């Protein structure tokens, strides 16, 4: 009797969450980065509430983008070093859905926590209540795309010298559409405009990324293991 794909998927998801639970520092570091970077901005541009609320959507989104990127190192590196990745690649299940599960588990322990933290930081930067909700929704739709796109970069740079800096060079340009529409929605909401179109676009990006990137990441992982 062999496990079906769903059983294996659940197994991977639970294991990755359990590992994150046992190594909380790894999860907390990108979050701390998010908080620190956004707290530095008022010191740089001055404490005037109008200036801060004008800059807040961009600052929060760029900080979330960088924090999400920094957490990517955790996605495959440990599994690559200890041989778990080989076992995944040799699993009798196709690699693509297994990768999707790993990215999902990674998002739960990175992007989702950024969403949870965001209202706090939005308050710090004097963002209105309505815009705060918009920020949380855009992060909820956008950070999974960041994780999915980032997984391709993380897989490509596995075991490559200068991997960390290289990863940022590969991944950040790909992130631009998410930044534009994520921050755009928050700005629009802060000035009382409709944000429906932004949400639809971010949702469309999410579907596109779900369909395309796990395949690319699986291909990249097989290349890195070769």
């Amino acid at each position, binding site marked *: 009797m062999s496990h079906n794909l769903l059983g294996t998927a659940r197994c991977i998801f639970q294991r990755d969450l359990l590992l994150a639970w046992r190594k909380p520092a790894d999860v907390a570091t990108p979050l701390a980065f998010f908080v620190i970077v956004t707290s530095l901005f008022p010191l740089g541009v001055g404490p005037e509430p109008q200036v801060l609320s004008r800059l807040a959507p961009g600052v929060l989104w760029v900080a979330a983008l960088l924090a999400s990127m920094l957490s990517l190192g955790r996605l495959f590196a440990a599994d690559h070093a200890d041989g778990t990745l080989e076992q995944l690649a040799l699993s009798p299940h196709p690699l693509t859905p297994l990768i999707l599960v790993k990215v999902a588990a990674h998002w739960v322990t990175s992007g989702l926590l950024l969403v949870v933290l965001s209202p706090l930081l939005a308050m710090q930067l004097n963002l209105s209540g309505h815009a705060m909700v918009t920020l949380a929704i855009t992060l909820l739709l956008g950070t999974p795309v960041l994780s999915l796109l980032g997984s391709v970069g993380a897989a490509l740079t596995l075991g490559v010298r200068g991997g960390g800096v290289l990863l940022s060079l590969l991944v950040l340009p790909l992130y631009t559409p998410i930044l534009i529409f994520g921050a755009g929605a928050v700005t629009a909401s802060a000035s009382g405009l409709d944000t429906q179109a932004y949400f639809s676009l971010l949702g469309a990006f999410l579907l596109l990324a779900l369909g395309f990137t796990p395949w690319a990441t699986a291909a990249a992982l097989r290349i890195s293991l*070769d």
Partner: protein
Amino acid sequence: MYKYASPKNFYALAGRLVPWLGTITLLLFVFGLYLGLYVAPPDYQQGDSYRIMFIHVPAAWMSMFVYVLMAGAGLVGLVWNIKLADMLATASAPIGASLTLMALVTGSLWGKPTWGTYWVWDARLTSELFLFFLYLGFIALQAAIDDPRRSARAGAVLALVGVVDIPIIHFSVIWWNTLHQPASIGSLGKIIAPTIYPTMLHPLLIMSLAFFLFFFTVVLIRMRGEILARERHTGWVMQIVRSDANAPEARP
């Protein structure tokens, strides 16, 4: 056709093609520049500054074309394991990156007389800037991986993800640009579009063709280098090296 898919035959074929392609490219450049700088009349709005278009626009077109070609070649190399396709992708990257840089610099030099400032977050320039970053990523990734096969395949995956993302980036930047730019500043493309006359269109097309052939000339030279490097253990490359070593001082 299939005969030339072997690196050895391609090396010889490319060696024969390069002088011809190079000569045609040079003639097209001379003719295009003559039409563009001398024959075409000044624009009634922009005066002579619009003449930068004859290099900016072909460079911008080529920068996108080369990236798509690179991704296509990468896909062919990835799926059918064809070395020449890998080499084409690797050889294209620095040329594409340099043409993107050219589009950026000439665009900003055209922007100064048009907008009064060297850099405006115009849709075309911003897209080009991110395209440049994508090229840099591709080159850096391939440079960081020593194993030639892994390097080629990793680059191919990145180029494929990039080629899907480029239209999205482009469209996002246009959307963003229309939201944030005051209406008085139009994009460079919009400024040219209504005022294009045959006297301006002809040099533009000839310069574009010249850039296109220039790319192929240079990519063939680069591919010859790549072939030598990657096939260095084969008999035919060793033979070329030996015959070349007999007269090393004969070349400048």
